[in-house]
C-alpha cells in the first residue's frame, strides 16, 4: 500500500517536536549546576531548588520554541550572571555600618546588577528580528539567574533586580531597531 503523504508529514512533524524537545533538554539541563553553585554559596536550598526548576523550565521552553526566543537564551543567562555575581559578592562582604545602623549591600548590588544585565540584553538584542520577544525571553532568564543570588534579602533583592532591568530595557525596547550589518 502506498504511503499517505499527509500521514507521513504528521509523523515527521511529531518527530520534529520530539527532536527539538530533546535538543532543548540537552542544552537546558546543565543550567541545574547554577542552582547547585548558588546553594553552595549561601542561597537557601529551597529557594535555589524552586528558582532552579523555574530556570530549567523557562530555558527549555525558549530553546524548544527556537528562533528569536531560542537565540535569547545565551545572552539572558550571561546577563543574569552579573546580578548573581554581584549579589554573591555583596553577601560575602556583609553589611555596611554607618554609626547608628547597618545596611545590607544586597539590594543595591542587585539593582546595579539588573541595570548592567539590562544593558547587556539590550545590546545583544539590537539586531534581533523580533526585539520584543528577544527582550522578554532574555530578561526572564536574567531575572531567574539573578534571583538565585538576589533572594538574599527575600523579595526585596529580586524587586531591585527587576527595577534595574526595567530601567535599561524599557528605553531600549522603545527605540527603533537598527538594521543588521
Amino acid at each position, binding site marked *: *500500500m*502506498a*504511503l499517505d*503523504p499527509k500521514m*507521513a*508529514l504528521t*509523523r*515527521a*512533524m511529531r*518527530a*520534529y517536536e*520530539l*527532536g*527539538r524537545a530533546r*535538543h532543548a533538554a540537552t542544552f537546558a539541563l546543565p543550567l541545574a549546576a547554577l542552582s547547585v553553585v548558588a546553594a553552595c554559596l549561601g542561597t537557601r536550598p529551597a529557594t535555589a531548588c524552586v528558582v532552579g526548576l523555574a530556570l530549567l523550565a523557562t530555558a527549555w521552553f525558549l530553546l*524548544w*520554541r*527556537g*528562533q528569536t*526566543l*531560542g537565540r535569547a537564551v545565551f545572552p539572558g543567562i550571561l546577563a543574569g550572571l552579573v546580578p548573581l555575581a554581584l549579589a554573591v559578592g555583596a553577601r560575602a562582604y556583609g553589611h555596611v555600618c554607618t554609626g547608628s545602623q547597618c545596611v545590607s549591600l544586597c539590594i543595591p548590588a542587585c539593582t546595579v546588577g539588573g541595570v548592567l544585565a539590562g544593558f547587556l540584553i539590550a545590546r545583544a538584542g539590537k539586531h534581533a528580528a523580533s526585539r520584543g520577544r528577544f527582550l522578554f525571553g532574555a530578561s526572564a532568564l536574567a531575572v531567574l539567574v539573578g534571583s538565585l543570588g538576589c533572594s538574599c534579602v527575600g523579595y526585596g533583592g529580586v524587586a531591585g533586580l527587576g527595577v534595574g532591568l526595567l530601567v535599561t530595557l524599557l528605553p531600549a525596547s522603545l527605540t527603533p531597531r537598527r538594521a543588521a550589518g
Partner: protein
Amino acid sequence: MDEHALRELDAAMVRLADGDRSACSSVFAILWTELIGFAERALGRGPDADDAAQQALEKIFDQAADYDRERSALAWALAITAWECRTTLQRRRRRREDPLEHAGAVRSSTLDPEETAMQSAMLVALRASLAGLSTSDQKTLEEAFFRETDGPHAPAFRKRKERALSRLRSAWRKIHGA
C-alpha cells in the same frame, strides 16, 4: 533536482533547524519524492522502500535541530536514507525472506518438487561419502558403474569393486548413520 530547488531546500532546512515550524511543509514537499525515489532504487518498489523512506524522513525531522547549515541538506538527507536502506537490507537478509512478487522465480518446474529435493540431497550426501574414499576406490566405482568391464581382468575387478563398495557403505554409515 535543479539548483534552485537545492537552494530552496537548504534555506528551508536552516529555518527548520532554527525552530520555524512553517518550514516543515516546504522541507517535506521537496524531500519526500526524493527520498521515496532513492529508497525504491536501493530496495525496489514496495513496502520496504516506503518504510525506509518514512523512517529516514522521521530521522531527518528528529535531527533537524542539529542540522549543520554548512552542509547540503539533500546530501545529509540522502545519507540518512542510505543508512535506513542498508538497515532494511540487513534485516531482510537476516530473516531470509523475499517479497512475494519474486516467488514465481523460485517455483519448481518438476511435478514433485519434494522428491526432487530429496534426490538432490541424497546426491550431495553420496558425493560427500565418495569424496572420503581413496582415489583408486573412486576410479574402481566409476569404472564399475559407467563403463563395460569384461575380459581376463573381470574377476579381479569384481573383487576390487566389492571392496570399494563396502568401503563406500562404511563411509556412508559413518557420515549419515544408516
